[in-house]
């Protein structure tokens, strides 16, 4: 009964958003599919049209959308509804919109818009093959020395650390770097011809990826892969407790995607990962040549840090403990220190808690409302100012395979604004933090408690750790340092 009402509401909701969108063209739909039928076109589209792959308007191509977004296809939802509800915000595209963004729409051949992206790729490949069929070996005498990153650009935090930082580092080495969304086939193909190296970022194996690889081989470009989460590792992926909140369907689609990510990493002779832990997981899954390219402190973060240090709060006798969380997935992580923190708050009235980002506060914590400061994430300047105004940062993480591969970027950001860190004994923290020297590592509640108390009670200890941490990060973990490490991996003219 309840489900029936829920479905009905859902149905009317979908009806409403389709009706209000300019991507559904009633006249077009009726003239194309409902000539002799008096049915309401939106109703028809919701009930049967979407499943049959009918086009809601000339502007939206559901086939192309699903081909360009295989994860959506796997879930099996109505493509137009998905686009209007999520895809649009997530920056997902299909061929038509990419064309519009990058090229001149009025000069496009219509057939290209109608076709899903891989058809265009197939066409280009067969054209090239027909041209070079006589050549014994297709090896250009001259290739522009540039890099192209083809990636899944849907995740903003990945964009900064894995894509924009690469652009910064490679450009500093004298290699011009282009970026392109993997489903923006026309743009990607265009730049493949400009580059000697192509890095595929965070992509699952798919038909379109195979075609990109085939084309790259034809034009003689080197291909590399880059990934920053253990999406290819079944246990790693599922130890992320966040998955508990998913529905059955979504879970099975996630399980499927693990398979495709694993296929992807095995396709490449050389892959980059963000941490030693992730390297180990990649090895366990059969990848051979795995290189570490860490997330780092880039120029933009350094600028933001300058701003933060200038604008931080004056010391007022209160000890602020900072906790930052990038997503809801970290709720479970926070739980491991919650009791420790509550005890501290009870024992020491000078302690305040500063939280930025998503965190579900339990009733136990809410009691200390006037000693809590909870801000949403806005921008890196504000985020770093919030850290800089605190006295120490905590980074609690559950012990599991997913976190084992975790990057220590939150440690780096705290260190760059001179704030000491206590982190869980996992992820890249165990490689970067020398316990008691440039930070603290905590393995259980007792350690959390004792190390937190030690830091809270000693200003000198805090200053010591913070200075060592800052020195370590500034000399080892900025994009400039990373550039020196990866210089030898690229041919630079």
């Amino acid at each position, binding site marked *: 009964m309840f489900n029936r009402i829920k479905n009905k509401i859902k149905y009317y909701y979908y009806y409403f958003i389709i009706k209000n969108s300019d991507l559904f063209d009633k006249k077009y739909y009726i003239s194309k599919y409902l000539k002799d039928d008096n049915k309401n076109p939106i109703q028809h589209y919701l009930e049967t049209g979407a499943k049959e792959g009918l086009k809601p308007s000339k502007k939206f191509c559901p086939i192309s959308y699903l081909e360009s977004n295989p994860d959506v296809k796997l879930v099996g939802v109505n493509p137009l509804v998905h686009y209007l509800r999520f895809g649009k915000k997530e920056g997902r595209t299909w061929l038509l919109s990419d064309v519009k963004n990058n090229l*001149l729409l009025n*000069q*496009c051949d219509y057939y290209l818009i109608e076709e899903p992206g891989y058809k265009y790729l197939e066409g*280009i490949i067969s054209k090239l093959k027909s041209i*070079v069929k006589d050549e014994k070996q297709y090896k250009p005498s001259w290739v522009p020395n540039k890099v192209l990153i083809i990636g899944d650009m849907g995740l903003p935090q990945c964009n900064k650390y894995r894509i924009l930082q690469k652009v910064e580092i490679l450009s500093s080495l004298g290699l011009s770097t282009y970026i392109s969304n993997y489903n923006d086939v026309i743009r990607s193909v265009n730049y493949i*011809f*400009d580059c000697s190296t192509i890095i595929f970022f965070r992509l699952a194996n798919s038909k379109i990826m195979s075609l990109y690889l085939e084309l790259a081989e034809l034009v003689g470009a080197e291909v590399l892969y880059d990934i920053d989460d253990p999406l290819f590792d079944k246990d790693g992926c599922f130890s992320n407790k966040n998955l508990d909140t998913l529905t059955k369907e979504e879970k099975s689609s996630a399980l499927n995607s693990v398979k495709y990510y694993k296929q992807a990493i095995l396709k490449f002779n050389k892959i980059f990962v963000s941490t030693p832990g992730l390297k180990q997981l990649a090895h366990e899954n059969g990848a051979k040549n795995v290189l570490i390219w860490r997330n780092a402190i880039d120029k933009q973060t350094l600028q933001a840090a300058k701003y933060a240090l200038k604008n931080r709060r004056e010391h007022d006798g209160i000890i602020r403990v900072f906790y930052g969380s990038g997503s809801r997935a970290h709720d479970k992580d926070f739980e491991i220190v919650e009791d420790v923190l509550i005890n501290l708050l009870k024992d020491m009235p000078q302690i305040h808690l500063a939280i930025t980002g998503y965190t579900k506060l339990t009733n136990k914590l809410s009691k200390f409302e006037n000693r809590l400061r909870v801000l949403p994430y806005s921008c890196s300047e504000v985020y770093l100012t919030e850290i800089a105004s605190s006295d120490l940062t905590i980074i609690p993480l559950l012990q599991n395979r997913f976190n084992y591969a975790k990057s220590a970027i939150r440690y780096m950001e705290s260190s760059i604004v001179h704030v000491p860190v206590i982190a869980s004994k996992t992820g890249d923290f165990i490689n970067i933090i020398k316990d008691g020297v440039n930070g603290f590592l905590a393995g259980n509640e007792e350690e959390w408690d004792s190390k937190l108390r030690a830091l809270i009670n000693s200003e000198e200890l805090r200053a010591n750790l913070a200075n060592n941490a800052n020195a370590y990060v500034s000399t080892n973990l900025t994009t400039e340092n990373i550039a020196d490490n990866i210089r030898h991996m690229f041919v630079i003219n």
Partner: protein
Amino acid sequence: MPRIVLFNVHFYPDSFGGATIVCEETAHYLKEQGWDVLVITSTNTIHPYTKIRYKVKGIDVFSIGLPNNLSFKDTYYNQNFADIAETIIDDFKPDIAHVHSVQGMGARFIENMKKKGIRIFITVHDCWWFCEKQFMINSSQKYCDNNGDFSLCIYCVNDYTSSEIRVNYLKNILSAVDKILFPSDYIRELYKEWGFLDNKALINKNGVNHPRNDFKSESGDELVFGFVGGPGPVKGADIILEAFQKITRNDYTLMVVDSAQNIGKTWSAYKKWKMPGKLKILPSYNQSSMDKFYKRIDILLFPSQCKESFGLTVREALCRDIWVIATDQGGVVEDLDQNINSTTIPMSTNYIHLKEAIEWVLNNKEKIKNHVNPHKDKIRTYEQQVNELIKYYTVELNRR
């Protein structure tokens, strides 16, 4: 070794037209001499304003997509093309750019190269720089014979103001480049008449591929005529058909080459042709297979209704001892000797002159079959042409 970039609308594998062959042969010879060569060309078969890169017959090529429906302005001032070409130029860093036929690609990219200090050569293959119709063929499909009076173009062009802007722009481009090359004296004089400066004009007569040593006619007992060109009035196809229809004899064969196949099309009009003699439609040939075609013919027909800047097929025939019937106009005549290696006819849309020439040939079958061109040595090879080009390039590079 110097680096050179060549521009032409077509290139392998879409070879089409004389300018393309000149461009291809130049690329080959320069490559053989050890130059770093890159060709930038255009195509309609990929997405507009994207590019593909490939290597064909040893030459590195960038092909840039052009839309099928270019605006008038884009045909000569194509900013999108120029932007893409600029990134390639920035990567390749050529010392010299040699621009051939660029209709559709426009001339905007030339400005960019000029700013970068690249030495620019342009070979003028037709009238495109002052005539938007490219071959001076007016709307009634006739050669306009305008000797430099732009005001007369008002009767021909769609939009005189736009046309004027176009000509002035292209005139400025030509006056800014380092050297303008002409394949014949005739076309240089024509550009002079049209007010295009000629103090930097040089003649670089086109070469042709000479026959292989074992070249021997296989045309048989009857006379065989050959024609290479599109249907319609411009290249003279219409009067060829008319002339043959009016001749009652049938002891000959006419072979027509469907050159459009080189760019993936076909000229279907020839299939409807009917005449007393035999008619054969041959598939297109390329530079390596052209001897096969010339072995089969005794006479090349070239009754062009416009003044050609050079006339590649005429030269190819002349160096193979093939008799030529051609209009006595333009750059074509520079290697023709009336009644010695050819019959020249006046340019006319009336078939009668051509008919008479064909009849004379039919009546002198033995002479034609045994004909040996005494002035073969006047026909240049590509090697000679490119060697001259290299001399020009070197002078220009050593300047300053």
